[in-house]
Each structure stands twice: as C-alpha cells, then as structure tokens.
C-alpha cells in the first residue's frame, strides 16, 4: 500500500529548492522544474519526466497469461511486445510468461489486480518498483545514440515492441507509444539506478536545449 512517505526513487538527482514538489498517487514527486513556458519549450526539443509514481503490477508463471485474460486484461501475444488496455494502462510481455502492468494516469488497475482473488497455481506475483521515465522531442534519437548501442529509431522498432537493452550501462526496458497526439518513449530501470540514469539523460537533454519537465506536460490528468 502506498503512503505519502513514499518518495520518487529519482529524488536524489533533483535540485534542492528550485523545483516544485507535490504528491501524486501517494508518492512525493517533482511536479514542475521551471516555468510552464520553458517546460513547453524543453519538451519540444528533448523533454524528460519522472513517471515512477504510476502503480505497477508484475506477474509470471505458466498460467499468468490465462489469469490476466480472466481478469479482463489485454495480453500481448508475443514476448517482448506490449498492449494497451481500454483504460490506458500498459501491459508489457517481458518474456514468454512474465508480464509488467502499469496503471494509466489516474487509474487503479494494479491495485485491483493485487486485491483480486487468490492466484491459482502457476501464477506468481513479481514486485515492481522501477524508476520510470517519459521521453520525447526532436532530439530524442540523439540522446538514444549517446547512451545506447542499438538502433531505437521508430523505423527499427516494431509497432508494439518492447526492447530490453542498456542505457549508459544500466539495464532498461523501453517502448514507444503515440499518446495524446505525440510520439513518446517510456523507459523503466531498476530504481537504485534511477538517479544516475536521470542525471545522464537530463544532462544530454540540456545539451539539446531540452531538460527535465513536470509529468503534467505528458499526462493531462496531472496538469
């Protein structure tokens, strides 16, 4: 259960004093880094936002896919692919029988799944507390080229593909999504590497006239 004692795993990377903090989904997060006009400008070039507060739910096992379907969840057919539910939540198939589900902004699907009836044999819960990022902008491919060795252009990525690779030496899960009329990338990494990866990516974003922005710039539910 989340309480207000939770703080984003990226907190140590944030500057003290000059940013506005708030509580989203029971987690203390930075809601604004600079003025709204400047954040809009950053987003145009290369915006990076912290989405670690979105609830996550993990499940694996030989019967995990069937159990999720029984709960009314859309299950991606192929490993390393993702699907979106009608409510906007994401379902990532991380392997043949392992799934990561992330709440839609303002949603509570993961909490419902946690409270669902006893899991049958062959269904095992996997705790997920990753640091999570949203990236977008004209220079996002330049950032990827600096931190990653593989081609992450949209042409190289399949439509619903999930990529597991490394950014600046840190293992990450990445996917591309068109949402609210714009192209975005989502990145998850182990929460203990969150501050490091944030500093690396935000530093590169600054070099491209972008930088950190509040999550409200991406999800209208948090404006």
């Amino acid at each position, binding site marked *: 259960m989340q309480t207000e004692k939770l703080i984003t795993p990226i907190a140590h990377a944030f500057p003290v004093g000059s940013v506005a903090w708030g509580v989203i989904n029971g987690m203390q997060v930075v809601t604004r880094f600079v003025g709204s006009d400047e954040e809009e400008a950053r987003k145009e070039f290369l915006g990076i936002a912290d989405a670690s507060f979105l609830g996550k739910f993990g499940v694996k096992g030989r019967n995990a896919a069937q159990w999720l379907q029984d709960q009314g969840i859309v299950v991606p057919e192929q490993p390393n692919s993702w699907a979106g539910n009608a409510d906007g939540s994401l379902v990532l198939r991380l*392997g043949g029988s392992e799934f990561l589900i992330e709440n839609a902004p303002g949603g509570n699907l993961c909490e419902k799944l946690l409270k669902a009836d006893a899991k049958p044999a062959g269904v095992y819960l996997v705790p997920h507390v990753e640091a999570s990022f949203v990236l977008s902008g004209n220079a996002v491919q330049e950032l990827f080229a600096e931190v990653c*060795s593989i081609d992450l252009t949209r042409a190289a990525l399949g439509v619903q593909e999930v*990529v597991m*690779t490394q950014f600046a030496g840190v293992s990450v899960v990445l996917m591309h999504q068109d949402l609210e009329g714009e192209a975005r990338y989502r990145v998850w990494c182990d929460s203990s590497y969150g501050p490091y990866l944030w500093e690396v990516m935000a530093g590169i974003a600054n070099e491209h006239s972008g930088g950190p922005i509040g999550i409200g710039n991406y999800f209208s539910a948090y404006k």
Partner: protein
Amino acid sequence: MKLLTCPVNGTRPLSEFVFGGECRVPPAADCSDKVWADYVHNRHGAPGIKQEWWYHAPSGTWFIAERNTLTDQVIRTFLKGQEGKQ
C-alpha cells in the same frame, strides 16, 4: 564493437552479456569418485568449438552459444532445450 545474438532479444553489443562458463554435462549421479572429481576439478582448455553459457543481463535470458574459442567465431546461439529448432 563485438556483437552477440541473444536468441530472444536479437543481436546486441557484447557489453550487454555476461559469460557463464562452459556448458558441461555432469556425469551420472552414481559415477565413481574419480569421474566426479574429474568433472569438478578439471577443465578441457584446448581451443576448439565449445558450447558456453551466456546471460543477456537486461532481459535475464540465459542461453547457450556455440563458439570456436580459437577464432572467437560464434557459430550459433540457442535456448537450452531448443537446440534442434535453430
């Protein structure tokens, strides 16, 4: 940049992988002490085509690579139990 092909995630830089040692088949449980000691303590170090365990760290995938340790040429990679499917 050296590349290795994970059977699940595709071709990636070698920096994403961890070497897991030679893929060796243990002798039968009722083997002699001499055979077991040979399995535990001795390795065949001569270069040639060998099967090795490799781990793709970002996805947590263990797989087997068949590699010529003399030329460092990787002949094929496959998941354990799926050798015949390659």
